[in-house]
């Protein structure tokens, strides 16, 4: 395997990591600050993708459709928080899991009724449809865009959390929720904002994933499992942990798929090597999670 290919695989890993970070940031905030297990986080990812796909033909512009979809998804998050989740904060985690699982079923069915059961069309904007020449490496332009958007969101979140008053409350909420409430902060408003922010980020992840992946009912659950692995590895409630966990999972998954079959080919024939490599590569991130948890049971950057 030559150096250029290795660089490309590194970029692929980074890009998958950044995509996971967009999902994980919202989920970890909601979990860490609101102490709410939100299985329906993937639903907002799906909604973001579907809204983008539906709005591109109407607005005739991918960036505009993306912005509108993210805002609408955040708004939907506010509504869902007020209608369905507010009563769940005092209940235990199992009730939350049940209720948010119900939300998954509800929204999947709703999307199926509105958009039909067959996956719908969404391609990258014409300007980003091709490849970009990076020192002799032809890399898909849209994947670079995902990378850029993800890194921009990471910087934005860092500024928001480290430099603003809301961010201070979010940090305080993640560290010691009871104390923040005792100090008279309007927790209801804070929770609503955090939840909407998380949903907006999930919607953004969905909108950016839509042109690369199938926009279909159930797309949220596929990515949700990976997202949970990310926040468990990173440490629940920690944005820094989410970033580190996401990049780690993205890298391990991509490099595992790229290198393991090649490694097995050294000791067995091609068909078996490919099958064994694929099987082991799909386990790699769970092995990573087990190792991290064995060494640091609260994840890499625990918030508490």
């Amino acid at each position: 395997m030559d150096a250029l290919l290795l660089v490309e695989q590194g970029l692929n890993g980074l890009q998958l990591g950044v995509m996971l970070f967009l999902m994980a940031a919202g989920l970890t905030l909601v979990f860490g600050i609101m102490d709410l297990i939100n299985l329906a986080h993937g639903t907002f990812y799906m909604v973001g993708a579907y809204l983008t796909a539906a709005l591109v033909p109407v607005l005739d512009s991918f960036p505009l459709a993306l912005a509108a979809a993210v805002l609408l998804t955040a708004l939907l998050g506010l509504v869902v928080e007020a209608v369905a989740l507010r009563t769940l904060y005092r209940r235990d985690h199992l009730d939350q899991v049940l209720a948010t699982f119900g939300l998954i079923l509800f929204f999947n069915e709703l999307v199926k009724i509105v958009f039909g059961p067959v996956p719908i069309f969404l391609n990258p904007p014409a300007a980003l449809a091709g490849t970009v020449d990076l020192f002799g490496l032809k890399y898909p332009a849209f994947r670079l865009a995902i990378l850029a958007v993800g890194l921009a969101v990471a910087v934005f979140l860092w500024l928001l959390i480290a430099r603003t008053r809301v961010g201070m409350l979010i940090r305080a909420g993640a560290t010691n929720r009871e104390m923040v409430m005792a100090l008279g902060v309007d927790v209801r408003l804070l929770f609503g904002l955090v939840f909407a922010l998380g949903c907006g980020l999930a919607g953004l992840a969905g909108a950016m994933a839509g042109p690369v992946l199938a926009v279909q009912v159930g797309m949220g659950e596929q990515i949700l499992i990976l997202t949970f692995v990310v926040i468990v590895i990173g440490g629940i409630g920690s944005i820094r942990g989410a970033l580190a966990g996401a990049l780690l999972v993205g890298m391990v998954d991509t490099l595992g798929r790229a290198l393991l079959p090649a490694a097995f080919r050294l000791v067995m024939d091609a068909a078996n090597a490919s099958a064994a490599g694929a099987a082991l590569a799909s386990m790699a991130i769970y092995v990573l999670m087990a190792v991290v948890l064995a060494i640091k049971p609260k994840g890499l950057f625990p918030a508490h």
Partner: protein
Amino acid sequence: MTRNLLTLASALALLATPAAADTLKIGMITTLSGPGAGLGIDIRDGFALAVEHAGGKLGGQDTQVIEADDQQKPDVAVGLANRMVERDRVQVVTGVVWSNLALAMLPTLAGGQTFFISPNAGPSQLAGAQCNPYFFNAAYQNDQIHEAVGKHVQDEGFKKVYLMAPNYPAGKDGLAGFKRYYKGAVAGEVYTQVGQLDYAAELAQLKAAAPDAVYVFYPGGMGINFIKQYEQAGLKGAVPLFGPGFSFDQDILSAVGESALGVKNSAQWSPDLDNAANKTFVADFKAKYGRIPSMYAAQGYDTALLIDTAVKAVGGNLKDKDKLRAALASAKLQSLRGEVAFNTNHYPIHNIYLREVVKGADGAVTNKTVATVFTNHADAYVKDCPMK
């Protein structure tokens, strides 16, 4: 006294149950939720259209279809199969999309003497050594579809082909089928996780291997992911892409649009096949569901036709399993793809067509038949099947 009456009533109810067996009860266990739902829903809708065309009576019998969602999970499918046998007492189970689910469900259904007619999954195991008196396939044997593209790619003179498929029974069957007729070099043979989203790592390897053609078997959402990413990686047009119909059928084409234009693929059916039954089917399906039918929808329809033919042949007597089996096995099915006969392993002998992805007159991207690759093609495993 009351207790005795209750006992008597329940005894009578038990006696009454077999009489109800004259109603044809069909268990439709298929994938209705999750990423594979598009396939299952098309099978269900195609089947429902055939029941409607038969006036609600397949083979002249009142027909009741009981739907259940297997969620593309083998354990769920086996649970549902059990329920269909024990509680719903259906005579026929159909709907299965995925080969691994078909393999998991068969022992339960065959053990319960319930006919299992696959509208899609056609694993090699059930065509060969593990063929079963209770299992029928109305669609195809997995390998057959891949064999057709293998032959085409061979005939076109490609010498270095890169192969990709998901790591599950139908994936293995697929590439084995392709290689049965393609004799050139294999630049790479890659199995990926079922349901994989991101193919960036595999596409980078593919590019590095510099093949002169690529053959991929990715049904459903996996196909959409792959085709989009193949184009974005700059490979479309640079390296010709081939696949079985599953990778380029209507469920995928409406989601990837022009990204798949010009790709040659194979199937036992195509929306433009020129026969009266198929024209009616395509028109009625579009009118009823508002979309172009996929091959899965046509297979659902053909499965219902097979049940219809066999039940008619036994005069509606559903209790004599041997007679019903003989009727299914000897059926000359007047399907949407012409007459189809069944081999000793209960798999179809039929034509396989080469199709091309084109933009139709109305602007919709769809498949057009360009050639008949195999005529009356039998599968490669029938010789291993002990049923004669």
